[in-house]
Structure formats: structure tokens, C-alpha cells
């Protein structure tokens, strides 16, 4: 299977199941310390999760939390959110300091944080993801903007997905 490891913890990997852990959070502008619920990014399955990438997305919402028909350019939206990511299972931070999403992803064509080596979460290990939002720009989500904005940008929906594979290892175990 290409360059992917054939073994995990000394045991042969017999099957990879495509898997994603995704969470959504609605934040207002200029907030700090808002975290995804604890269980969102916790591996609660009896198989190791081999994460290959993190996929962050930001969507502009109006005051009723409906998606604005006309969105701000995505690069701008991704400059409005900082993420702090920690793995409680291993007591390590994945970012040194809260980091703008734009600084995590590779570019405008591949908007993911790709990991050259896979990262593993065993059962009950997980990520804590905390968001900071910057001040929102004035933006009218209508096709024909008016002043003041008729459908102003009020909230952001921050979506984070960890994508990879669940591993079936041989022999199977009750613990992992």
C-alpha cells in the first residue's frame, strides 16, 4: 500500500477503513477560548485511528446562523480563525501557539494540513481543538450589497475534520 506503514505496534495491519472525525462550531467575532465539545475528536472505537490530514473550513453565517449566499473569499475567512490543537492522550500540542488556519494549510488548491507521517490515536485518545476568532469585517451576504449591509456577516461556522483510516490489526485485541 504505497508508503503507508505495514505494521502498527508490532502487529500487521490487515485492513484500513476510511474514516473521518468531523466537528462544527459556531463562533462570533472577537471570541477567544471557544472549544469543540470533548467527545468530538475523541477516538471511541476499538481500533487505532491513523490520521493523515486535518481539513479546516470556515463558512460565513448571517445573524440567524444561515449560510450567506455570497461568501467572503475563503482565504479571508481562514484568516479570521486561530486554532490551538492538543492531544490529551499523549500530552502534546500540535501547534506551538494558536495558529491562523491560513498558516496551517498548504495553499489555495490543497486546503488541508497534510501530515507526511500518519498520526495515531488509540481508543479514548483525542484532540482538543480550541478556537479564537478575530474581528469580523463588514460584509453583505446579498448578491447586491447595500449600505448598511442587509444580510451582514455575524457568525462563522468553523469545521474541522481529521481524516485517515481505522486500522484493523492482527491479532485483534480487546484493548485496541
Amino acid at each position, binding site marked *: 500500500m504505497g508508503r503507508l506503514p505495514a505494521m502498527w505496534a508490532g502487529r500487521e495491519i490487515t485492513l484500513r477503513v476510511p474514516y473521518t472525525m468531523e466537528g462544527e462550531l459556531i463562533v462570533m467575532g472577537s471570541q477567544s*477560548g471557544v*472549544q469543540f465539545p*470533548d467527545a468530538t475528536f475523541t477516538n471511541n472505537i476499538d481500533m487505532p485511528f491513523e490520521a493523515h490530514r486535518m481539513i479546516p473550513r470556515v463558512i460565513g453565517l448571517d445573524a440567524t446562523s444561515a449560510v450567506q449566499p455570497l461568501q467572503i473569499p475563503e482565504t479571508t475567512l481562514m484568516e479570521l480563525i486561530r486554532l490551538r490543537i*492538543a492531544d490529551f*492522550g499523549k*500530552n502534546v*500540542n500540535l501547534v506551538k501557539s494558536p495558529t491562523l488556519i491560513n498558516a496551517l494549510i498548504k495553499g489555495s488548491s490543497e486546503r488541508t494540513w497534510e501530515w507526511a507521517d500518519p498520526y495515531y490515536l488509540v481508543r*479514548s485518545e483525542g484532540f*482538543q481543538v480550541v478556537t479564537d476568532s478575530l474581528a469580523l469585517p463588514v460584509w453583505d451576504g446579498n448578491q447586491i450589497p447595500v449600505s448598511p449591509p442587509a444580510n451582514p456577516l455575524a457568525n462563522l461556522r468553523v469545521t474541522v475534520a481529521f481524516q485517515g483510516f481505522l486500522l484493523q490489526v492482527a491479532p485483534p485485541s480487546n484493548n485496541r
Partner: protein
Amino acid sequence: MGTMANSSTNTLQVPGPATKNPATLFKAAQKPMRVVVTNVGGSTLFLAHDTESLTNQPVLTGTYVLPAASGAGSQAVIVLAPMQGLYAVTLGAGGVATIAVSEALPVT
């Protein structure tokens, strides 16, 4: 990575009592960790090692209470066993908790 786990600091918004998702302040990994929790918000902070104690109403049994900050803020030092977590909710809106985490029994 040395033998001593890294210390860390963090400040988090803490949701109100109606939430089904209490804030996770910290979870210990393989080593016991000491957590200094200070209530820096305007509302009473309830701490517990399980989320159920914080989501079942009323919230008192099984929790540790840090009164609302008035000036310096009320503080507690809590030691987490390996793999144990520390969660929080507040009595009202505007809850904020700040934590400083270090290994409970440092080995250098």
C-alpha cells in the same frame, strides 16, 4: 521529549448550566498532572472529573465549586490521576477559566 511532561497554560470559555458539553479544562495522559484552576469569569464555576455531574440538573453533587471572581479570582489546585479529566460549567453566562498545568511529581 524528556522525562518530565511539558507544562502548559490555557484559558477557556466555559458554557452555562444548560449545556450538554461542559468545557474540558484538561486531561492527564500517562502521568499525574497538577492543575491550578482560577475562575476569572463573572459566574460561579463548577468542576468535576466527569461530565455527567455537570450536565445533570441541579449541579452540585459530585462537583467542586469555585465562587465567582471578585478581583483576584478564586483558585484551586487539583491533581489528576493518569487518564483522568477535569471538566467545568458555570452557573450563568460569561464563564471563563484559566489553568496552569504541570507534572504533579516532576522527574528531571
